[in-house]
């Protein structure tokens, strides 16, 4: 059987996590190529629709990552994101998309290594879990 | 090289082995020590406790005498208490013009004066910085191989004037002892107080301090000292302190120049080992085992 290579969509905030991802690049912290970075201005602008869309389009996991509590460039977008992700956990969890597949992390601008680590862990765990939506064809 | 020598009272009495071994080592190194003529007591800790000006005056007199002998030759002082008292005068009269004036008046009584006094140097300072460990290494003919020594500095050669070593974590003796072939045992008590004259006036307090030092020195063959007061406190009360501690704390205690002298090939008599109060059989045995070797 072909090895399962998950696709992870990462919504990263422009200020912190995107910088961390950049830093991971410049400091040569390799992380698996399974992740697709989508830069957003703030985790607070991640519409739950985007997350649903990602899963329905075939993502095996979604990462939403922004500034640490208190650090949000826009004061409190990350707190709002946390409530939204909680809501999504509550909904998607019922339909087999467990919270392992939808993660919210706070990764600061200097945490390039932390970013690489999160991606590593996530990819490894999702590989274990397998694809998010097994029979996509009829669903979407 | 040439030093003006200030032995101090102890070295002519209870610490005569310090005096003798110091002179012997310097002689072996080819360095002349010229004793200050008519030097007087530095005042020890007593003078200041009676009158601070008196303490300064006593020290100043010695500086004046030394200056009159050879202003360019440093004053070498083996006793830490003497060293500090002289050093204090050297430093304080520089900073305190009024004190300088008073001292001038006092010295004037004897037609003495201080203008540009020589530097006051502790024996250890001279050994480390002028003689240097390298020289000792070259001149060592009887390496004290395997002798485990803890260097004990005491207080007053280090503090309050941190001239040649870290005032709390001194290391200057390490190189010298190693040059002599000895093994320096790491310990924490090198710069702790031995109780000093409290041993006479408040012995219970002082003995506690000595006990701590002796406890930490366990495992070493000898303690090396650079101060008569320390030497006496560490060597003179070992029985009583062992009794207090409930454990045998006896250990050989030697003056640093005694150990250096032995390494330089001097015999026991030349460094007056017979005067030491605490020399353990184990130490003496080791001592006999050290051979004279011809340095390359």
């Amino acid at each position, binding site marked *: 059987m072909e090895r399962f290579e998950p696709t992870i969509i990462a919504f990263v905030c422009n200020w912190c996590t995107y910088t961390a991802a950049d830093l991971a690049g410049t400091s040569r912290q390799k992380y698996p190529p399974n992740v697709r970075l989508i830069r957003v201005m703030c985790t607070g602008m991640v519409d739950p*629709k985007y997350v649903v869309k990602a899963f*329905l389009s075939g993502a095996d996991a979604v990462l939403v990552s922004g500034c640490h509590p208190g650090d949000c460039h826009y004061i409190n977008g990350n707190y709002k994101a946390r*409530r939204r992700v909680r*809501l*999504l956990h*509550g909904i998607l969890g*019922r*339909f087999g998309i467990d919270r392992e597949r939808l993660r919210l992390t706070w990764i600061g601008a200097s945490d390039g290594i932390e970013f690489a680590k999160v991606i590593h862990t996530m990819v490894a765990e999702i590989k274990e879990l397998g694809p998010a939506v097994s*029979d996509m064809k*009829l669903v979407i | 090289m040439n030093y003006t020598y200030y032995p101090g009272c102890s070295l002519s009495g209870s610490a005569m082995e310090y005096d003798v071994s110091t002179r012997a080592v310097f002689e072996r190194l080819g360095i002349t020590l010229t004793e200050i003529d008519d030097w007087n007591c530095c005042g020890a800790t007593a003078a200041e406790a009676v009158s601070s000006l008196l303490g300064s005056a006593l020290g100043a007199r010695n500086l004046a005498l030394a200056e009159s002998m050879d202003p360019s030759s440093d004053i070498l002082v083996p006793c830490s208490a003497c060293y500090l008292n002289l050093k204090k005068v050297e430093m304080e009269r520089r900073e305190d013009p009024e004190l300088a004036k008073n001292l001038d008046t006092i010295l004037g009584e004897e037609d003495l004066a201080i203008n540009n006094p020589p530097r006051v140097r502790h024996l250890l300072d001279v050994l480390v910085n002028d003689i240097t460990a390298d020289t000792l290494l070259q001149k060592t003919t009887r390496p004290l191989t395997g002798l485990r020594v803890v260097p004990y500095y005491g207080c007053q050669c280090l503090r309050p004037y941190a001239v040649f070593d870290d005032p709390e974590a001194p290391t200057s003796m390490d190189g010298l002892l190693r040059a002599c072939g000895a093994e320096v045992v790491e310990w924490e008590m090198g710069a702790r107080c031995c109780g000093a004259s409290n041993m006479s006036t408040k012995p219970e307090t002082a003995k506690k301090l000595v006990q701590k030092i002796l406890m930490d020195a366990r495992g070493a063959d000898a303690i090396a000292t650079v101060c008569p007061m320390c030497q006496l406190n560490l060597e003179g009360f070992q029985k009583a302190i062992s009794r207090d501690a409930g454990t045998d704390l006896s250990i050989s205690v030697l003056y640093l120049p005694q150990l250096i002298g032995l390494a330089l090939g001097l015999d026991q008599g030349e460094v007056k080992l017979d005067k030491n109060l605490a020399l353990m059989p184990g130490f003496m045995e080791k001592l006999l085992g050290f051979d004279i070797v011809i340095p390359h």
Partner: protein
Amino acid sequence: MEETYEIRGTNWLDSVQKLLASVFETSSVTSMLVPVRHSTTHVLMPTLVSDPGELEGADPFAPCFPLNSAKLVSKLTKKHSNEIIAAVLRPCELRALVELVKIKQATMDNLITISFDCAGAYPNREYNRTGAEGKAAEGKAKTLGFMEQRLGSKLDDDTDKQLSTSCRICTGPFPENADLCITLLDHDPGALGVFAGTDRGRELIMGKAFEVKSLPGTRADTVKEVLQRKKEAAKKVFEDLAGKTATMAGLGNYLASCVNCYNCRVACPVCFCRECVFNTDVFDYEPFQYAAWAKNKGTLRMPMDTVFFHLTRMIHMGLSCVGCGQCSNACPNDIRVAELFTAVGKGVQQGFGYEAGKSMDDPFPLSVFFEDEFQDVTGI
């Protein structure tokens, strides 16, 4: 304990009509929204009554629930008006109204709410087939018969199985925070109790000539018993649902016959958008996109985005879902949407310690946040 006043009429409808009429008398209410059986069609519909004389046709207790009136109240109150109106609402309608008020789609400033112990309703099609036939008098008789059976059995009789699922599993059939709350359970047949659920209600009640009577002592136990029973029923329904929708594919199957008619969202009292986002240009794909998707996947189910639509609706209104069941009523293809949404709604509301429609004081969970909450969300 809130003081309860008792009203005794010839029957429950007579009693309630008395009460409603008295509201007109003693307050400045100019009109009242209440289900009225229309004299010509005999169809029961929410009706705005301004002539107390017309209350004769009012039948708020009929097991008929053509639509959630919260939406109507929204129309009546969203924009400023000087009229004071009253509305007789089922508890689930009142809850939906509370949610709408929070999102500025209605106000309670000039509104008096009246609610009652709800015995439930049939699915719309069922009632239209059986309940609405015949003349006004027959309809009334049917309502009274229904009530007698329901209340007599403490809402545990054979009709229960024919009611809409949402009513069967409704865990909020008793009024709490209406201005005037009408209690029926454990009262003598025909008699009803009234207590004030709000300060405004208290003002209304005070000085009325109703006879003070404390609630029947057995009521609390009965309420408990009913709720317990309904909770168990709900649990069973939810477990069954969870089994069917444990995966995304399962959810897809559950929604397989959806044709994106969006009737469910039109019927939903808390779906407040003027136009659903799924009807906007956001979902106007270009032809080449469809082609690309089909190419990628091999097949493309059309119309697409049905699961997307339902998931999005859960996200948008799950937290406000009051479990009224109108979405199922509205589905042309008999998808049991209400169970799905009620289950999801209950779940996510619990997640935020929120109960839709319970209180005006609880802010909508996505409108507030605290710095030190929900640390577990970010825990990996």
